[in-house]
C-alpha cells in the first residue's frame, strides 16, 4: 500500500479531526458563531490554511496583473504591479482574436450541446426504465459500457467519419459530437434517478389520458430537476473547457471556441506575454463568474456525479 507511507503526515490532521468531531457534535451551529471551542491550535491551523490558499491563488494573480502591463514591464518583473494599468491590452486582444465572436461560439456550443444531451438522455432513460425488457437492457448496457473507452481511441476515425458526413469545421457538427459523447454519462445518471422515482404519478396521468410525451413533459421532467441540474453543470464545465475535440475538428477562425482562440498567443514564435496574459484573463473571467454564481450547485453536482459515476 502506497498510502501506508503517508501515515505520519495523515496522523496529525486526523487527531484534530477527531477533536473537531466532538466539538461539532456538541453545538454545530453555535460553535461557528460564538467561537467558544476555538483553540489556539485551530487558529494556527487556520492561518496556515489561509497562507496555503494565498499561495494557491498566486498563479491567477500573476495572470491578472501581467495582463495589465506593458511588454517591457512584464520582462522586468512578473510580480510587481504595473505603473499604469494597460486596459488597452484587453482591447487589443478583443480585436486580435475576435473575442466576442469566439465567446458567442463557446456559449452556443455549450448551451445547445448541454440542452440536447439533457433532452435526448432523459427521454431515453425514461423509456428504458419504464419499459424494461431485453431490448432496453441491451441498449442500456451497450451505452454504459462505452464509458470505459477513452476519447483518444475514437478520435482518429471520428475525424474521418465526421468529414464524410460534413460535420467537420462547423459548430453544429461539434455540437452533434458533444451529444454523442455526453449521452452515456447523462443517460446513466438519469437511469439511476428515474429508477428511484415511484411510478404512481405517471400511472395516474396515464389513466387520465396522457400519452407518453404528456407524462414525460408534464410529470417526469419537473421531477428530474435536481439530477438535471447536476448533469447540466458537469457537462457544461467539460464542454466549455474542452480543447482536444475543437482542436481536431475546427479549422476556420470564425468557428473557434475560447480555449482554441487563446492558444494563438502560445505558438512557437509569439511571446507577447502581456497580450497572452490579457487573453488568458479574458478566458478565465466568464468561467469564474459562472462558478461563483452557481457555486452551491457545482459542488453538489460534482459530488453527486462522482458518487453515481
Amino acid at each position, binding site marked *: 500500500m502506497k498510502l501506508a507511507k*503517508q501515515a505520519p503526515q*495523515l*496522523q496529525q490532521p*486526523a*487527531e*484534530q*479531526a*477527531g477533536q473537531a*468531531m466532538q*466539538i*461539532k457534535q456538541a453545538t454545530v451551529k453555535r460553535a*461557528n458563531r460564538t467561537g467558544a*471551542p476555538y483553540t489556539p491550535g485551530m487558529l494556527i*491551523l*487556520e492561518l496556515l*490554511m*489561509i497562507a496555503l490558499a494565498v499561495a*494557491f*491563488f498566486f498563479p491567477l494573480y*500573476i495572470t491578472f496583473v501581467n495582463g495589465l502591463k506593458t511588454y517591457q514591464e512584464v520582462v522586468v*518583473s*512578473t510580480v510587481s504591479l504595473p505603473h499604469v494599468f494597460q486596459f488597452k491590452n484587453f482591447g487589443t486582444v478583443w480585436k486580435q482574436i475576435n473575442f466576442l465572436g469566439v465567446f458567442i461560439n463557446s456559449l452556443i456550443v455549450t448551451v445547445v450541446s448541454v440542452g440536447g444531451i439533457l433532452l*435526448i438522455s432523459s*427521454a*431515453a432513460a425514461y*423509456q428504458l426504465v419504464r*419499459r424494461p425488457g431485453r431490448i432496453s437492457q441491451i*441498449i442500456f448496457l451497450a*451505452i454504459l459500457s*462505452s464509458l*470505459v473507452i*477513452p476519447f*483518444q*481511441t*475514437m*478520435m*482518429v*476515425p*471520428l475525424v*474521418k*467519419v465526421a468529414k464524410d*458526413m460534413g460535420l467537420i469545421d462547423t459548430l453544429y457538427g461539434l455540437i452533434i459530437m458533444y*451529444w*454523442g*459523447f455526453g*449521452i452515456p454519462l447523462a443517460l446513466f445518471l438519469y437511469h439511476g434517478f428515474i429508477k428511484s422515482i415511484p411510478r404512481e404519478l405517471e400511472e395516474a396521468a396515464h389513466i387520465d389520458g396522457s400519452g*407518453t410525451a404528456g407524462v414525460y413533459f408534464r410529470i417526469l421532467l419537473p421531477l428530474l430537476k435536481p439530477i438535471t441540474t447536476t448533469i447540466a453543470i458537469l457537462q457544461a*464545465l467539460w464542454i466549455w*473547457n474542452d480543447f482536444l475535440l475543437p482542436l*481536431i475538428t475546427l479549422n476556420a477562425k470564425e468557428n473557434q471556441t475560447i*480555449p482554441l482562440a*487563446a*492558444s494563438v498567443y502560445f505558438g512557437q514564435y509569439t511571446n507577447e506575454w502581456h497580450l497572452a496574459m490579457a487573453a*488568458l484573463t479574458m478566458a*478565465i473571467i466568464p468561467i469564474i463568474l459562472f462558478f461563483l454564481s452557481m457555486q452551491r450547485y*457545482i459542488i453538489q453536482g*460534482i*459530488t453527486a456525479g*462522482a*458518487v453515481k459515476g
Partner: protein
Amino acid sequence: MSKTKARHMAAYTAFVAPAVLFFILIIVIPFFRAILFSFQDWNGISSHIRWAGWSNYTKLMHDSGFGKSFVFTFKYVIATTILLNVLGLLLALVLNMALRTKNVLRTAFFLPYVIGPVIIGFIWQFIITGLFPEIGKATGLALFQKNWLSLPDHSFWSLVIVTVWHSAGYFMVIYLAALQGVPKDLLEAAEMDGAGRYLRFWHVLLPLIRPAMTINLFLAISNGFKAFDLNFALTRGGPFGTTESLAYHIYLDAFAKNLFTYASAKAVVFFLVLASITLVQVAAMKRREVEL
C-alpha cells in the same frame, strides 16, 4: 398487434432512438472503425486502404517513442494519483473542522478546477518561464534558476505540480462529502472504547470513506492516463519527447505525422490497458468497501 401496443412501440422508439442514433454515430462507428483501422495501412489521403494484418501491432512493440510515452504516463499516473489523493484528503480533513474561514478556503482550493486545463497549462508556462527565474534571482535558490521546461525531470514534475494544483480541490470536495456522511456516534463510540486518534483514523474513518477513495482513485487514474491538454500547453511533450503522454503521442502520430492507421493501433492498445486497469482497480476496491 393491438392499437395500444403499436402506440407504445412508436413512443418507445421515438424516445429511445435519438440516444441510440447519436451513440452509434459518434461512439460505436468510430470505435469499431478504430479497431478496423488498426489492422489496415492508410495514409489518410489515398482512396485505397490496404490490409496490414498484425503489422501495426508488431511495429508498435518496437516503437521506442510509444514505449517512452507509456513509461512517462505510468510515472505521471502514479505520482498524480498519490499526491491528489493525499492532498485532497488532507485538505478535506482540515476543512471539515470548525475553521472560521472554511467556506472561503474550500472555494479558494476548488477554484482552479473550473478553469480548463489548456488555459492552466498556458498560465503555468508563463509562471515557470517568467516567475521562477525571478524567484531564483531574489532568493538565490538554485532550484528556481534552472529552466524547468528544458530539463526532463523538472518538466515531469512541472506537469505533476500543475495537475495537483489544478485538481486537488476536486478530490477535496469528494472526500469532504464522504467525511460529512460519517456518523459522529461511530467515532465517539470508538473513542469510548479507548481507540486513540491514530486508530480512529485508520480503523473507523478511513474504512467509512472508502467509497470516496474508490471513486477518487478511479478518477485520478483515468484522468491521468487521458492527460492531453497540459502536455500540449505546458511542455509540448518536451524536452526531447520526455513528457509525451499516451494521449499526446497518439495525437501527434495521427494529426502531425498523418499515421492514421498506426495511431489507431496505439489507441486500441491504450484502450485495452486503461479499461483493464480501471476495471481491476474498481472491482478490487469495491470488495473492500464497508456497508453501513
